[in-house]
């Protein structure tokens, strides 16, 4: 019932709603993302940001699919938000003002895929190191391209 309530009250703020194995998925566009997340957090108590990740489709024009997973502590339900962005999109809104956990998650998406989040000025590499060039989880980064920090012996 929670999902029905969500779908009916939020019509117009998302593009498409569908069901994925028992979880509601909302497809949104770039401008609809931040108002929708605000609305979900304030009115429907989706106060735990579980995860931010991205999927790479190199042959598409809008190359990346950003995926957000949210959890509501009141109704104990999860929801997924998906949006498509281009490779050099620079106006992806950041949700670090709303959720503290978004810090690490956005840093990871940035260094793995190269997605820039506007207003987030702390996009240092987190799982990789300073001096690593390239974005490893893109499909065109070869798996064994190593960039060693220490010179090898012999």
């Amino acid at each position, binding site marked *: 019932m929670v999902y029905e309530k969500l779908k009916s009250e939020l019509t117009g703020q998302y593009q498409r709603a569908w069901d994925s194995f028992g979880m509601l998925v909302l497809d949104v566009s770039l401008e609809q993302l931040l108002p929708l997340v605000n609305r979900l957090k304030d009115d429907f108590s989706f106060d735990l940001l579980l995860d931010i990740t991205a999927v790479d489709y190199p042959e598409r024009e809008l190359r990346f699919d950003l995926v957000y997973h949210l959890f509501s*502590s009141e109704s104990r339900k999860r929801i997924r938000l998906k949006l498509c962005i281009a490779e050099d999109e620079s106006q992806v809104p950041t949700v670090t003002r709303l959720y503290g*956990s978004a810090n690490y998650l956005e840093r990871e998406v940035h260094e793995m895929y190269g997605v820039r989040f506007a207003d987030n000025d702390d996009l240092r590499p*987190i799982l990789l190191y*300073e001096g690593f060039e390239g974005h490893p989880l893109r499909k065109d980064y070869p*798996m064994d391209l190593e960039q060693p920090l220490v010179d090898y012996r012999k």
Partner: protein
Amino acid sequence: MDYKSPVSSPLEHTADPNHVVVNVGPSHPATHGTIQVIAELDGETVIKADVHCGYLHRGFEKEAEHHTYHKVIPYTDRLNYCSALNNNFAYAETVEKLLGVELTPRCIWLRTLLSEYNRLADHVCCLAATVMELGAMTAFLYMMTIRDYIFEHLNHLTGARLTYSYVRIGGLANDLPEGWLERLEEILKFYEDYIERIHGLLDRNRIFIDRTRGVGAMTPEHALNWGYTGPILRSTGLDIDLRKDSPYLAYDQLEFDVPVGIQGDNYDRYYVRMREMDESVSMIRQCMKQLPGGPVSVANPGVTLPAKDKVYTQIHSLIHHFKLVSDGVKVPSGEVYTAHEAPNGELGFYLVSDGGSRPYKLHVRSPSFAHMGGMHTLLEGYQLADIIATFGSMNMIGGECDR
């Protein structure tokens, strides 16, 4: 010799010149792995802390995109290596959901039993490491003995002590051997005897309470904002538990309580874990009584390997075996997110498939990574020695945090 530093911290530039910037480096004796904390100290008090993880990033997601579904199973073992079976089962359930495979009842109950058994092992390991750093060597050695008996027992079942890879898509690798359940009962009795001694050593110990009460405390709103789940969230007072809210496997047929804490400090986290271990033991006993018979893997030839004697005698079993091993299981295209209640929190797998035999994208929502994101808020304002205590009670497992 010039060493390139792999991280850069803004603290080097923004710190007050009267304060000392100290590096609690990636190789430190809190044996839970590689985390670097760059802390700005004023005397003994931590003013600001900067937590750097990523020293164990082993490229799990990139490896998963290049291997078939069965070959990914050993990689999932090494995520949360203290309780490898939980990761295995969460991953297998994700793939099975996309495939649309129904598990046999014996498999479901066995998976529940083994999940709880591994939860026991993980909590024992976490508490052992935490109290060792506070100086309680006796409790550490007692808990290591329990853990070793559990490892040997699981070695009898799966063939390995630590990284089992016991699950297969659609079932398990093999059924229980003779005498396994009797030995399980012996280990549970042994566990209860030892845990009584540890309760006596630590629960009302003046030094332990002074070191852990009030340290690293957080409110439920703070915990939700920074992404905490699992025993840490439950120690703040909320009873959010995936096994009760959206039950998976056989949890809806088991009776158990969800322990919650009061203040969300280190002592509460220790006590919530001790109570959860007792609940796990009672759940294991219920599973042992209600374990049904029957086959352990589903009989779907597109998913399960056929029995070895048939492979050597019948030609179509041989062909099945060959296709399954070389090409792998073919999963229809779609996407799914499944979450399990791992001993650390909510462990989720997000799988995107394009219809082939390799995942297009496999993402792990790991609890330890989110916990590390909020950890600097728990260190600021406390003393340098409290970093070790708080860090131990977070149970950060390096393999899970950095994947």
